[in-house]
């Protein structure tokens, strides 16, 4: 019992620190949103990669950057309707 409690607390701590971590009840929507956000963050965070993509897309680098940052809002669309 105490072990479970501790594990729960540890998980909560972990989650508070790293948003992208998950648990057995994470939905596919949450997970895929996180994947997309992490991907965009990674592209933006590596300047050579960003330049590469900007050239490939034929856009200016800063524009691509802005687009990517904007896409991080709801990257996989609206959350699914909650059915009760």
């Amino acid at each position, binding site marked *: 019992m105490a*072990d479970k409690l501790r594990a729960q607390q540890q998980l909560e701590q*972990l989650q508070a620190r*790293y948003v*992208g*971590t*998950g*648990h*057995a009840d*994470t939905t*596919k929507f949450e*997970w*895929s949103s996180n*994947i*997309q956000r*992490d*991907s965009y963050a*990674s*592209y933006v*965070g590596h300047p050579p990669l960003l330049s*590469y*993509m900007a*050239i*490939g*897309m034929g856009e200016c680098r800063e524009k691509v950057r802005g687009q*990517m940052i904007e896409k991080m809002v709801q990257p*996989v*669309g609206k959350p699914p309707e909650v059915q009760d």
Partner: protein
Amino acid sequence: MSDADFDTIRKLQAERNAASAGKKGSKTFDPSQQRTDVSTKASLTESFDTTLYERESSDKFAGYNTSIAVADGDDDEEEEDTSRRLVGQYTASREQMNEFSHGNGVEEEDILLGREKSARISDRETDYQKRRHDRVLTPTRVDPFAANRQDGAAEDGESYRDVMARRELEREEERVRKAIEEKTANGEVVHHKANLADEGSASPNGEESKESESKEVATAGRKRKQRWDVGTESDKPTTEASEAKTKRSRWDQTPAIGGVAVDETPRRRSRWDQAPAATPMGNQGLVTPMHPSQMGGPIMPTAFGTDISMRNAPLSDEELDMMLPTEGYKILDPPPGYAPIRAIAQKMMATPAPAGGASGFGGFMMQDPESGRALGKQLPTEIPGVGDLQFFKAEDMAYFGKLTDGSDENSMSVEELKERKIMRLLLKVKNGTPPMRKTALRQLTDNARQFGASPLFNQILPLLMEKTLEDQERHLLVKVIDRVLYKLDELVRPYVHKILVVIEPLLIDQDYYARVEGREIISNLSKAAGLAHMISTMRPDIDHVDEYVRNTTARAFAVVASALGIPALLPFLRAVCRSKKSWQARHTGVKIVQQIPILMGCAVLPHLKGLVDCIGGNLNDDQTKVRTVTSLAIAALAEAANPYGIESFDEILNPLWSGARKQRGKGLAGFLKAVGYIIPLMDEEYANYYTSQIMEILLREFSSPDEEMKKVVLKVVSQCAGTDGVTAGYLKEHVLDEFFKSFWVRRMALDKRNYRQVVETTVDIGQKVGVGEIVERIVNNLKDESEAYRKMTVETVEKVIASLGAASISERLETRLIDGILHSFQEQSVEEIVMLNGFGTVVNALGTRCKDYLPQIVSTILWRLNNKSATVRQQAADLISRIAMVMKQCGEDALMGKLGIVLYEYLGEEYPEVLGSILGALRSIVTVVGISQMQPPIKDLLPRLTPILRNRHEKVQENTIDLVGRIADRGPESVNAREWMRICFELLDMLKAHKKGIRRAANNTFGFIAKAIGPQDVLATLLNNLRVQERQSRVCTAVAIGIVAETCAPFTVLPALMNEYRVPELNVQNGVLKSLSFLFEYIGEMAKDYVYAVTPLLEDALIDRDQVHRQTAASVVKHVALGVVGLGCEDAMLHLLNLLYPNLFETSPHVIDRIIEAIDAIRMAVGPGLTMNYVWAGLFHPARKVRQPYWRLYNDCYVQSADAIVPYYPNLDDEKMDRPELAIVI
């Protein structure tokens, strides 16, 4: 030293060794084992081959007395008679001489007695702390701030106005009493001897009982007048008597019993000829009056054997069974409707047993151990509905007796049931076993609101007032209050004062933890009740007549301030400190301000200005006490604020200053203290100016006989000396002479506190004026006749030299210093660490300048090494280890050789503490002179150490292993391989040592030895040791194998180790795996050459049935994988991952943790892409049991390499999850 001297010592030493060899019952080991070189002849009874046959059994005289002592007892102890008297001296017998070395009042009391006593809080309280018993739980208060006040819900209880009126009355009474006392003292009122009737109705016991009685009745809120000239109000208490009472502890009184009213204890009639009118007839003979809560319950025995009424008690069933024959009789059922009378009290005390021993005429009664009735029945160990308790004290009966009365719970009202429920839970918390306590505490907490505040506190608080309370019980009950407080929140308001009454004494407890506990409770209480209610509750106590109450209230207020914030309390404090009505209120107000910085430290800084302003005016109060406490408060504030906040004190500098000039005596001490703490806050020039000003007063007070003043003066001097503005020249010119004249006197060394203060202050001054100045002045004291004074000097010299070095000590002074230190070292009657430290520090600070004195020092050491007393020898050996470095620097290798030889001879030392020190000294000599120059040669020394390794004493073990390890490290070639192997065997035992340092040293030594003589033999020994039962031993062996592999390259170890894995024994296989795990941990990158070699073994281990096996194998995999990151062993790692993966569903925490770690490590080796391919499959598995471990793996990977997995995220077939950016190719 001369050679003759040295020879003498050697000779003495030989004699001593011979003597100790002859003595039986040596404390450590048999000298015959260690002194193989003493005799040159072969013994006929001893076996020659000592490697095959142990010698231990050879001594056939073991256990016999080899010599007969002339007298009984230690002949060491007896001084030989050197006088020339012809007639024997008659002296007192040993019993007589030892009479006062045991028993009451001497340090060594009966241990058991002492422990039992110390558990009780009241036994170790000072008189001042005992005054808490004078306080009573006041009536419940109204809660004026309650939410539903309009409904008139909380109307019952005392209002603020009532309390204030009562306090007013108390003060008036106190004033009148004082006035009368004064008059009496002046002889203005002559009391005529009271007549008989008066004497009878009042207390015949005179002053003391009068006092105790008045204390008792104080419950009702006023003291009953015992004097004929003051009206009595004896009829009042009956209505309010429902409060708990405390009484003075007198042996002939009933212990105070909470909760319900107690009749006054009938007092012993001291005069036979008085009419017993005062005491009620019914209670006449009974020592213990019946207590209402006890009625129906068994009677408490006051003392075993003294209570004769036992004889008249009804016979129990068991006794009847024993008396009457079993046959021919029948036990009848009681007729219907019959109820036995349980309450004995209702029988009008029909059988007044002639009062027992306590009354004086009961006579002596033998205690009858057989009578179970007298013992067992009185104190039940099991209370119905509670279960087995840890203990049940006689006093508990007063509170929990109700539970044993056996009444029917079905017929009780809800309130009664609740009360019993709480009682049971409290009893469990107080007296139960730990698990019982835990559940009971939880139940109390969870149901606190259902129970309600009043039933809870009405039971808890009286328990806390109990006199026989022990630490543990108090702690537990306080814990209950804490938990309950949290739950009850604002419902506690009516009980705040009662809680304060029981908790405030904790704030002045000697025990630090009790104080902390008290603070915590009061802080929680103030958070629950709110500031307004706290103030209105405690306000009446601020000008209470009793100083104790005011003091504790001030401390409690400081806690409230720290809990609710100083700003919230400031307006109130300001008002209190300016109170015109009573100086007590001002005094308490200032005291609160004093306590706040003591409690909060530098956290007062933001509010410093407000606090200082608040009390500033009181520096000119017309009451001396208020002025004094104000200066102390300012000192406390300045101390807490240091080094900031001087601007807050600007206002009060002037009054403080003029005050310091005007005051005398105790008042002055406070002012000086305040100035002393403020000066360090000032900037340089001001500090300088003010110091020179204050110094006049200080110099005048140097000669003050007052202890308190002395302390303050010393403190101020050291504060002033520490400030930047005060120069060395000024101190030398104005202060030093006076200071040394008045404080460096023998008398100061006798009191511990003065001693410390003087040393501290001298050291502080020394920081400014330099070492030479100080040492010059005190060096002569090193030859003083008072030992305490010498010690004080040595300590000061040590501290000064340790912090400032010995550069400024002149050559002349150096001689005197060494001479003095040597003298005081030799003359010490009790060996003190201070002397040792002092000597060591001085010698080390002087360094090569010591060269001339070394022979003298060494000769002292040698003589002391030969001393009869063990502590002297130990200290001498310790000194060697301290000064070995300096001896080397001075080039005194010859002397060190001599010391080494003497120490070597002393390896037969029987006291382990001393032996440890001797080994330590040898070690430090070996360290500085080196292996090759060592005298005696290592090849002689080491064989002597082997048997000492067997010694179980930690200090010995640590020092030997250190010495042996050093030799093995630096000069293994000086000893042959056989000896090293023998040491290896001894070392195996060390692996079981409790101390980690010893185990680590043993492991390292294995490494050194293996390096010296090659790993084969050592490894064989270690592998054999894997078969032993003891876990710790096996673990340490595994570590040792790892170390050996590291020092001798893994290929020398791995084949044998892997071969050992073939032994079909679980322990061995596990041990091998464990060794592999350590091995790979230590060898790191070297592992890449051995990965393919161990993979088949790991394969086998990872598919074993045994869980532990797989667990250990996993940890091997982890270390292998971490070693080969980036070294091209990915194929092997992937193979191991495939074998590891099925273990993912283990549930045992140890196993699963190791498995996850191993997978993580492999991820490091093969990269996250490949490993995560295994993970994707299970993240959204329908079974939660599967999802859980997979998410754990995912989280670990995410945390460690989130960026690296971005390219490897799976392509989900959802169109929204498309990541087209990754498909861009230029």
